[in-house]
C-alpha cells in the first residue's frame, strides 16, 4: 500500500541577510493512513518548517530547494529542477548529488507522463519548461569530449542562472505560484489540516468562533448552505466537547482550552485525511474515532511515546532518527536520541539522574561541518567533524543518521 504521506529528501532553505539558513536538510519519512507519528526535537530544529513545507505555508523567504512531498500519490510539494541544481553544484563534490537529483527528476517526469496532470500540482507548462532544462543539462553532461570538471560546472551554473533569473523568469515564477496556490487550496484543510502551536490565537478576534468555522466550511464546500454549515459546526462542537450555545461566542469569551478545542473542531470540519498538530490536547481519542492520520509536532518525547506509532527525531534541520516508537525507545541508534531520552524521567523504571544535552542547537545559517551534532556528541570521533554521516537503516523501517548507528544500535559503542 502506498503511504498517505511521503516526504522524500525534503530540503527547505531560508534566505536571510546573513546568508542561507538550512532549516530542513534531507528529511525523509513516511506516514500511512490512520497512523500517528511524532516529530520531536528542540526548538529551531526544523519541525515546524517541515510541517509548513508540507502544507505549502512557508514564509516568502523560505524555498523548497530539494526533494518532494507526496500526498496520496500526488506530488504536492516539489522543488523545481533549476533551483535544485543551483543548490547542488555549489558543493565541492557535486557530481554524484547532481546525478541523484537528475535520477529523481526522471522518476518525477515518468510519473507525470503516466498519470498526467493529477500527479503534480504544477501546470503542464512548468513541467515542459523543466523538461527542456533537464535535456539541456543532460546534453551538457553527456558531451563526449572531456571538458574539465570546473568548466562543466561553470556552464551548468550559466544555464541554471539563465533559467532562474533570465528574461521572464520572475513572471513565470509568479504564474507558477498562482497555479500552485489555487490547486493547493483545494487540498489544504479539506485533506491536510494543520493546527498551529498558537491555537489560542488562531481565531480572528473580531469575528465569532462559529462564523469562522462556517467560513472555512463554505470556502471548501461552495454548495453547502449556511444553515447546513451551522449544523455541522454544532456537531463538531459536540465532538470536541464544547457546548453548542457557545457557537455565537467571540474568541476572547473562550477559555484557552476551549479555543484549542474549537481549533480542533475547525481542523476536523472538512474531514481531513491528515492532521498536523502542534497542541495535542484532547485530540488523541478523536483521532482513533475518525481514523485520521496525524503528525504531532512537539519537543516532548514522552508525549510521543504515549500516543505515537512512529517517531522522527530532528536535530538542526536533519532527521536524525526515524522508526517505530517501540524500536526507537528500546534500541535508539543515534546519540542525540539517547540524549533526548535520558533528559526525560521514566514513570515505571528505576529512578535515575536526568541528563541534559549540553549546549544549544547550532546556528543553521552556518552549521558545523560533518555531523551537525558533533560538537555536543559524547561519541564524537575525528570522522564526525569532517564527513557528513550517511542515513543507515539499522533495522527494517528504523533509520539513523550517524557514522556509528549500527554500533550504537547494537550497544557495542561506549561513549568517551
Amino acid at each position, binding site marked *: 500500500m502506498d503511504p498517505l504521506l511521503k516526504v522524500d529528501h525534503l530540503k527547505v532553505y531560508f534566505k536571510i541577510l546573513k546568508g542561507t539558513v538550512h532549516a530542513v536538510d534531507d528529511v525523509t519519512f513516511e506516514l500511512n493512513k490512520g497512523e500517528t507519528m511524532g516529530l520531536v526535537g528542540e526548538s529551531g530544529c526544523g519541525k515546524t518548517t517541515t510541517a509548513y513545507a508540507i502544507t505549502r505555508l512557508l514564509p516568502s523567504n523560505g524555498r523548497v530547494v530539494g526533494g518532494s512531498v507526496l500526498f496520496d500519490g500526488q506530488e504536492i510539494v516539489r522543488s523545481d529542477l533549476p533551483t535544485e541544481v543551483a543548490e547542488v553544484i555549489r558543493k565541492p563534490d557535486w557530481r554524484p548529488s547532481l546525478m541523484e537529483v537528475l535520477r529523481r527528476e526522471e522518476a518525477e517526469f515518468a510519473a507525470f507522463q503516466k498519470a498526467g496532470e493529477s500527479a503534480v500540482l504544477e501546470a503542464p507548462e512548468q513541467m515542459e519548461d523543466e523538461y527542456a532544462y533537464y535535456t539541456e543539462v543532460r546534453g551538457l553532461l553527456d558531451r563526449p569530449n572531456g571538458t574539465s570538471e570546473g568548466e562543466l560546472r561553470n556552464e551548468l551554473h550559466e544555464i541554471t542562472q539563465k533559467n532562474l533569473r533570465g528574461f521572464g523568469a520572475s513572471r513565470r515564477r509568479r504564474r507558477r505560484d498562482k497555479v500552485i496556490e489555487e490547486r493547493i487550496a483545494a487540498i489544504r*484543510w479539506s485533506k491536510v489540516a*494543520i493546527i498551529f502551536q498558537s491555537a489560542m*490565537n*488562531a481565531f*480572528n478576534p473580531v469575528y465569532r468562533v462559529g462564523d469562522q468555522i462556517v467560513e472555512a466550511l463554505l470556502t471548501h464546500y461552495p454548495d453547502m448552505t449556511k444553515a447546513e454549515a451551522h449544523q455541522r459546526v454544532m456537531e463538531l462542537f459536540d465532538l470536541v466537547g464544547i457546548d453548542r450555545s457557545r457557537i455565537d461566542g467571540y474568541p476572547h469569551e473562550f477559555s484557552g482550552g476551549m479555543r484549542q478545542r474549537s481549533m480542533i473542531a475547525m481542523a476536523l470540519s472538512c474531514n481531513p485525511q491528515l492532521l498536523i498538530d502542534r497542541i495535542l490536547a484532547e485530540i488523541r481519542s478523536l483521532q482513533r474515532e475518525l481514523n485520521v492520520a496525524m503528525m504531532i509536532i512537539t519537543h516532548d518525547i514522552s508525549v510521543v511515546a504515549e500516543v505515537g506509532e512512529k517517531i522522527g527525531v530532528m536535530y538542526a534541520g536533519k532527521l536524525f532518527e526515524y522508526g517505530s516508537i517501540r524500536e526507537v525507545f528500546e534500541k535508539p541508534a543515534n546519540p542525540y536520541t539517547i540524549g533526548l531520552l535520558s533528559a526525560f524521567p521514566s514513570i515505571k523504571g528505576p529512578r535515575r539522574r536526568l541528563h541534559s544535552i549540553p549546549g544549544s542547537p547550532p546556528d543553521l545559517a552556518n552549521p558545523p561541518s560533518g555531523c551537525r551534532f558533533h560538537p555536543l556528541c559524547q561519541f564524537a570521533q575525528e570522522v564526525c567533524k569532517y564527513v557528513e554521516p550517511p542515513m543507515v537503516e539499522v533495522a527494517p523501517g528504523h533509520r539513523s543518521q550517524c557514522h556509528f548507528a549500527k554500533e550504537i544500535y547494537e550497544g557495542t559503542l561506549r561513549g568517551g
Partner: protein
Amino acid sequence: MYAASSFLANRSFAFLYAVHESDGRPLAEWARDFGEEHDPDRFHGAAPVSTKESGLTTDGGDLTQPTVEGTTIFVGSTKGTLYAIRRDALSNTTGDALAHPATLKWTYTDPTLIGQNPRFTGPPLVYRESSLILAAANGDGGTPSDPRDDHGVLSAVRQDIGNLSWKRTLSAPLAGSPASWTADGTALHPAVFVAFGGPTLTGVASLDGGGQYLAPSPPSWVQPYPSGNQYWLGLDNQGRDIFSQLIWGSRIALLVGFLAAFFTVVLGLVVGLVAGYAGGKTESVLMRFTDVILVLPGLPLIITLTAVLGPSIWNVILVISVLGWPGIARIIRAEVLSLKERPFIDSARVTGASTNRIVFKHIAPNVMPLAFLYMTFSVSGAILTEAALSFIGLGDQTTMSWGQMLFFVENSKALSSWWWLLPPGLAITLISLAFFLVGRAFDEIVNPRLRKR
C-alpha cells in the same frame, strides 16, 4: 400678477384679484360677473374665494398678500385660516371645465389657536426644498385685552395636502412674513428667519428646514440696530452679529473636519493595507510615494493648491485629504505588518481565504480602531488647516467660517479688539482640543499600555 385681496362689507366674500403686471388689466379668465348685487366695476377682474362653486365659506377675516407657487396661490386670513387656491382652470381631456380658477384646494387652521383670535400676518413663504409653506400666525393667548401673553406661531404646512409638518411657537407675536437664506443654495439646509416683537421682546428667530433653532440671524446680515443686548457677542465693524457668525462657522468647521478626516483615513487605510500585506515591489512603490508626499512642505503646498484650484470648501477638503494620508498609511502599514504574522491570518490562509478576503475581511477590521483613532486626530488637524487657509484669505469667501472671521478681524486692522478676535479663536482652540481629547481617550482604549493602573 396675482394681487391683494379685498372684502365686502358684509364679510361673506373674499376676493382675489388677477391683473396683468404690465398695465393692470384684469385677467379675463379670473373675472366674474357678480350680478346686480355688486357693482361690476368695483370688483373688476376679481374672483370670489368664497362662493358655492369654490366650495368654501370664508372665516370672515382679511386676506394677507397672496403667494403664488406653481398653479397654486397661498393666502392666509386674519382670522386664522390658510387657503390654497387654484390658479388655473382645471379641465379634462375633452375640454369640459372641472374647476374654475380661484377655487379651493385645501385650508389649514391651527387647532391650538382656536378661540385665541388667530391671525396670519403676511404672505406665506414657499420653502421649495421640502415642499413646505411657511406661514406666520399670531394668537392672543386667550386674553384679547392683554398684549403680554400674545404669541406667534410659525407653521410649516405641506404644500400639496395642507397637513402640518412642524411648527414653532415663539413667545412674542410675529411680524410680516418669514424669510429664508442659504449659504450657497444647495449644500446645506437653508435657514428660515422670522421676526418677532412684543412689549418685552424683539428679535429674529432662525430655524432650519426641520424647525430647529440655529443662529439668531444669517452671518452676513447687517443688523438694523447699532447695538443692544440682543447681540450676545456684539457686532463686527460692518454691523454683523458675531454670535451668529460663530454659530454658522461651526458648520464649516465640522464639515471640513469630518469630511477631510474621513477621506484622509480612507486613503491612508487603503494604501497602508495594500502596502503592508502585498509587500515586495508594491510595498516599495507605495511607501516611497508615501514618503514623497510626507516630506513635501505641507502648508505652502496646501496654500498653493487651494490658490490654484480656487477657494471653495470642497477644494479645501480635497487638498487636506490628499496631503494628509501618508502618516496614517505608514501607521496602518506597520500594524498590518505585525497583524499579518499573527496566527489567525495563517489559519485564515490555510482554511482557504483569498488574499482580498484576508486583507479586507480579516486584517481591515483589526486596524479599524487605529484608523478611527487617527481619524479623530485628523479632525482637529483639518479644522486648524481650514482656519489657517481662511485666515490668510484662501478660504471660501461665500461661507462664514471661524478662519474667515479671523480674516475679517485681521483685515479690519482690529487685532486688538479682543471681543471680536477671541470668539473665533477660542472656538477653534476648543474644538481642536475637544477632538484631541477624544482621540486621547480613544488611544487609551486602542493602546492598553497607556491606561492608568
